[in-house]
């Protein structure tokens, strides 16, 4: 028997990846999780845009074009100047594709990741597997960040894939009327790669914190909705604003969100303890 005392260690990436990969593998086995996830992505990124854009460009719904054209007048001048297309239906379809679907990019990942994240820690406790993790050499930080990654990836991947499909749909339907492929615009790239991820991380940091503290998955889902809804609204407004505003605005919004996310992630780790994994909430 040898007494050892190790120096303080940095983040153990191997353990983090192992925790994340195992959670994702379990998620892949759970149809009841990923089928609604696909349906949600399909509705927001495929069904709704296809129907709306086709009704504008092919069916030529006069009322819809008129209403949309009116709505476009309230957009900032800078945004209005960027709208392409020679005809009213084409301009309306362009505006719809570029500006009005921005919330989709926020709603889908946050909704999916929140659903996964809410159950992640309390679920370990409910299934009794928290006991295994509590007695394992996995560090608390590695467990927290591993679970965060496993919650973030399904939502973000669905969004990225959905974004790709959405781009194809938009370019195929609206492209011919506005002079060719135009999507994604530079603002959308910034939105997807710089603004959405920190909002997602911020939401998940709060959701995982709740998941560590509540007594059941049902309670975690309820509480998470309370957290994620305001965040969706904030992210919605910020994402929309970053599209309407100049390039710099999107970068500022993203930077602010990254700072908030970093603080939330740093503080979130403290909410997970081995005692909580074991279901003992009131350790002194």
């Amino acid at each position, binding site marked *: 028997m040898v007494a050892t005392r190790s120096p303080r260690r940095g983040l153990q990436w191997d353990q983090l990846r192992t925790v994340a990969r195992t959670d994702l593998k379990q998620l892949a086995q759970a149809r009841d999780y990923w089928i609604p996830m696909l349906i949600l992505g399909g509705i927001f990124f495929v069904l709704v845009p296809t129907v709306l854009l086709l009704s504008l460009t092919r069916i030529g719904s006069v009322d819809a074009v008129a209403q949309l054209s009116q709505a476009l007048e309230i957009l900032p001048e800078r945004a209005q100047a960027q709208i392409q297309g020679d005809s009213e239906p084409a301009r309306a379809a362009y505006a719809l594709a570029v500006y009005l679907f921005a919330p989709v990019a926020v709603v889908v990942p946050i909704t999916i990741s929140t659903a996964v994240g809410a159950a992640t820690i309390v679920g370990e406790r409910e299934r009794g597997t928290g006991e295994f993790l509590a007695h394992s*050499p996995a560090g608390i930080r590695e467990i927290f960040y591993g679970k965060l990654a496993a919650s973030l990836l399904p939502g973000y991947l669905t969004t990225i894939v959905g974004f790709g499909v959405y781009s194809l749909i938009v370019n195929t339907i609206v492209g011919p009327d506005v002079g060719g492929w135009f999507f994604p615009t530079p603002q959308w790239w910034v939105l997807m790669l710089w603004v959405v991820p920190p909002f997602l991380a911020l939401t998940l940091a709060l959701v995982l914190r709740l998941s560590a503290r509540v007594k059941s998955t049902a309670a975690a889902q309820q509480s998470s909705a309370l957290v994620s809804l305001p965040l969706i609204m904030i992210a919605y407004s910020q994402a929309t604003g970053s599209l309407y505003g100049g390039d710099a605005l999107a970068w500022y919004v993203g930077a602010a969100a990254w700072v908030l996310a970093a603080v939330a992630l740093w503080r979130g780790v403290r909410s997970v303890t081995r005692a909580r994994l074991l279901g*003992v909430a009131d350790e002194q």
Partner: protein
Amino acid sequence: MQPAAVIQLDGVAKWFGPNPGLTDLDLRVPEGRITVLLGPNGAGKTTAIRMITGAFRPDAGSVRVFGVDPDEDGDDVRRRCGVVSAKPSLYDRLSGWDNLRYSAELHGLGSGAHVDERIRAAADRFGIREALDQQVGGYSTGMKTRLALARSVLHEPELLLYDEPTSGLDPESSHAVLELVREMTADGTTVVMCTHLLHEAQGLADQVVVMQDGTDVVSGAPGELARRFWPHDVVRIGAEDPAGLDLLARVPGVVAYERRDGVAEVRLDDLARVPDLVAALTGAGVRITRVEPHEPSLEQLYFAIRQGAGRSRLGAVEGSTV
């Protein structure tokens, strides 16, 4: 010379809000031996295990495992421990293989052919290899326990902590599990096992620690504890005419005599007196039907200790030589 202590708990207390988990636990677990924590539900056995792995932080007292404090060096302590809890703590949606691989990777074994080989060897040892590709959700209780046991030894730990490992198993599976526990000490592994089933501890324990209300009531080797509670050898003698046995009360060397249900229970100052007893009886024309030395079972010991604990705390047996 006493083996080195792998675990040393001194005056450990742990409270959960107003409820005591441990009140004043002293525990010394020698290296390479099987220590059984015995006690009723709520005695603090599981809390003691959780304290040893550093999952819980003590409110008072000190915990040393492998010479270090698991609250500070918990990851290193846990890397050297294999734990099986009362519920197997397995991921039902994963296959048996994936459950084992998860544990192997968290314990830093990495991945690759050498880990696959270890997984197969551990599964073979516990007779679970054929089911490794199935989802654990479809396993029987016995299979889950076997898989949990295989997982606990995968990384070749120095210390095994088993919290009621036979919970929910049929007698045959329980017996097999206990045999495996015994085997594992053959290579020098230290085992701490919690149970409230006395027959499990019988014949398995090198050291017994009886716990009650969050504290150790008494600890020591079963033989030593029996000697402490029954300092004299006991012989049970039967005869065709039980009344004829009563003359034994006057035979030199008999410390106490009692006849119950036609059998005499005789306490002697030395087991070497037995031939004298037989000679006295046959000399008086008593036809003997049985003579058997009686070793108290762990169950009798346990209840004797628990009764004693109701009156006063006995303390650990001095000079335990387990």
